[in-house]
């Protein structure tokens, strides 16, 4: 049943309809994208679901029940809401932001704590590192990730997203889109997603609904829309979407750099200290090439050996068969510019860095994961 | 106690005159300090800090200190008024000049203007509305402080008010208080309107 619109209209004070006789059914578990030019009514439509706007006529129901039968406050606490600017409260930590609604619902402290933990793990952000940080201390991508987690806090059946990735740089946007797909595959929420970016719509939506001037022009799967657009306008609108023709990346091999190996030092046991390309990391390898230690490179070459800070345990590295998606995320979030790539015997075979990723992207033109 | 119109008018004029003189002296100092402190944020902060301390000292206390230093008379009041006028003008001048979009200075340079010309013909006019606000605040404050100038032997409407309080004579009190109040309100309103006209003109440029 999901979310259902029946002949919903919203009038502006001047008499023009912001949304005009909209009827649409979003089945449970579907990610529906609302897209259209500015002023088409997509955001207004979204905001009527959690009653931030009230329709002038028509009925909206969730799981079969008219939303007007709920108290608006209770309704909103049961629906997730993410906006472009994140709306994270700057004077509260990540944890406090996430557990805001659970707190309002009077969950006990343990339950809230566990839930925050769970949610952060879901997106690979460690509790210890992030829970007590403030939004200002996070990057744009991290902030929006927290914004999404916040909307999931009470495990609501429906999530509303209003251009959530619009303010992010292209790499973060891509990473978060993939993250959302992964989460959706796992959580199966009913998601209404507003965007003006056709690429995003086609990539994320199970179905896409195109609106103009308050009217729903057509709704269908990305394929359906591409094959049978109902109107000239839709065909033109989609025409901006370029179907990717490059091969999907299966592994990170394409991003990896293996060139320009500078050997900093050769060791007594046959081991070496190497540096790849200009990545600012030194890798300590044993005689077999197994990666033993990692350290940030020193600027002045071999002069300050004693001050090199080698990390021996828990070296951050990437397996050659790891998914490109995971690796991109780790690079976007992580503390370092680059990560060593090792084979299944933990031998160093290359390095991925933000620079190498950007280079690959600019060469191939598109990434499809 | 004389409350005739000519007398009250004279006192009003004295009051306004002293306020304006004190304000202008303080404004000149404040302005000069702000210009000097440009591009020297630490100096600016120090100067603003000192001026803030002066501002915090209650009016009558400051006048009392000045009384000890300079004795009775209009001069003492004017010194006090000048001191109080420094902060608003200095701060607003500094902020006004700093707030000028560097684009305009670039344009000036590009046209071949000297530093001095850029200052006079570009920065000052653009910063003027903000500076004027500081001047307005200073002048209205001065009119207020000048009412207690009577205690350091200065002229002005404070004379009537104080006398009236001592004699508990309502007519005398009002003869002093009403003109003083009106004076302050009038100056505030006139200067505010002037500011608005000027800032509209400035943004139209």
């Amino acid at each position, binding site marked *: 049943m999901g979310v259902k619109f029946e002949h919903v209209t919203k009038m502006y004070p001047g008499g023009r309809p912001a949304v005009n006789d909209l009827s649409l059914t979003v089945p449970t578990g579907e990610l529906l994208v609302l897209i259209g030019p500015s002023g088409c009514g997509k955001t207004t439509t979204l*905001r009527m679901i959690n009653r*931030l706007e009230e329709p002038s006529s028509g009925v909206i129901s969730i799981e079969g029940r008219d939303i007007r039968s709920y108290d608006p*406050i*209770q*309704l*909103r*606490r049961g629906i997730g*809401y993410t*906006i*472009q*600017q994140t*709306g994270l*409260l*700057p*004077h*509260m*930590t990540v944890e406090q932001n996430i557990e*805001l*609604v659970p707190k*309002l619902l009077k969950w006990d402290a343990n339950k809230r704590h566990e839930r925050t933990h769970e949610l952060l793990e879901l997106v690979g952000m460690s509790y210890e590192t992030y829970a007590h940080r*403030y939004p*200002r*201390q996070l*990057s*744009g991508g*991290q902030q929006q990730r927290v914004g999404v987690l*916040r*909307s999931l806090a009470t495990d609501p059946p429906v999530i509303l997203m209003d251009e959530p990735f619009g303010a992010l740089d292209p790499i973060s946007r891509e990473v978060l889109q993939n993250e959302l797909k992964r989460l959706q595959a796992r959580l199966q929420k009913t998601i209404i997603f507003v965007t003006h970016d056709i690429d995003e719509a086609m990539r994320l939506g199970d179905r896409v609904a195109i609106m103009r001037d308050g009217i729903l022009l057509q709704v269908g799967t990305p394929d359906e829309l591409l094959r049978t657009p109902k109107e000239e306008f839709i065909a033109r609108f989609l025409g901006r979407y370029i179907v990717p023709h490059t091969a999907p990346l299966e592994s990170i091999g394409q991003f990896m750099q293996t060139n320009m190996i500078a050997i900093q030092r050769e060791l007594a046991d046959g081991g070496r200290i190497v540096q790849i390309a200009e990545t600012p990391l030194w890798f300590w390898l044993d005689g077999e090439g197994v990666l033993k230690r990692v350290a940030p490179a020193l600027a002045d070459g071999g002069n300050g050996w004693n001050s090199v800070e080698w990390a021996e345990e828990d070296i951050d590295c990437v397996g050659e068969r790891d998914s490109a998606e995971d690796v991109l995320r780790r690079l976007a979030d992580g503390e370092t510019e680059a990560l060593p790539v090792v084979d299944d015997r933990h031998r160093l075979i290359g390095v991925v860095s933000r620079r190498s990723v950007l280079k690959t992207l600019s060469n191939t033109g598109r990434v499809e994961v | 106690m004389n409350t005739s119109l000519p007398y009250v008018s004279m006192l009003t004029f004295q009051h306004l005159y002293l306020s304006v003189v004190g304000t202008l002296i303080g404004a000149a100092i404040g302005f000069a300090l702000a210009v000097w402190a440009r591009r020297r944020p630490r100096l600016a902060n120090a100067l603003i800090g000192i001026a803030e*301390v002066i501002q*915090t*000292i*209650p*009016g*009558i*206390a400051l006048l*009392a*200190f000045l*009384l*000890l230093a300079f004795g009775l008379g209009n001069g003492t009041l004017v010194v006090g008024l000048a001191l109080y006028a420094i902060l608003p003008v200095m701060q607003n001048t500094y902020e006004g000049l700093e707030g000028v979009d560097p684009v305009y200075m670039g344009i000036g340079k590009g046209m071949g203007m000297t530093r001095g010309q850029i200052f006079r013909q570009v920065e000052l006019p653009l910063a003027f509305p903000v500076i004027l606000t500081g001047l307005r605040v200073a002048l*209205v404050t001065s*009119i*207020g402080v*000048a*009412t*207690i100038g009577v*205690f350091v032997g200065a002229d002005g409407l404070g004379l009537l*008010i*104080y006398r*009236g*309080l001592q004699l*508990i004579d309502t007519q005398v*009190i*009002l003869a002093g*208080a*009403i003109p*003083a*109040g009106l004076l*302050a*309100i009038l100056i*505030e309103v006139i200067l505010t309107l002037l500011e608005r006209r000027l800032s509209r003109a400035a943004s139209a440029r």
Partner: protein
Amino acid sequence: MNVLADFWNNYGGQIMDALGPHLFLTFVSLALGIIVAVPLGIFLTRNPRLASPIIAVVSIFQTIPSLVFFALILPFLGIGTQPALVVLFVYSLLPILRNTYIGVRSIDPALIDASRGQGMTSWEILYMVELPLSAPLIVAGIRLAAIYLVSWATIAALIGAGGLGDLIFSGIDNYDTNLLLAGAVPTALLALLIGFLLGMVRRLVTPRGLKVGVAR
């Protein structure tokens, strides 16, 4: 040091006697000002059309010199502490009102929208979002009001409300330098002290999340 000790011996009593009423006038009117101006400021953010006229009216009171205001009140309310409190209360309003209004208004509307969207009630938004974020500005307004009040309370002595102003004015009348200083110096120190203490309070109420370093 001896000079100070002597001074205190001679005038300490009078200073302490005057300090009581002075502090009373300052803090009671400040408290009343806060109680009225903060809710009023919040109210105005919900009704912005009323903001301009109301703030304009309060500003006019501010423009009137304090001595004038006290003098105008006298025919109606007489002399003593109560009329003084009325005047001081009215004076304390503007700085607090204006800062409360501006502080709450300047909060990013996206924050309010996200908070509403999550299901916070208006009261919850007020307590958990608007007040914490505007607290530094509100306290700054209170600090300014307090400093002004110390100053105006000295004038209140002229209408019989007591306070350190009594010492200053007596000192002037009697050409008594020491008495004058006994009034002026504590007054100045009091104002500076209150300014300093409330400045610290302001730093204390500034939320941590707004002070920490920005993302790398």
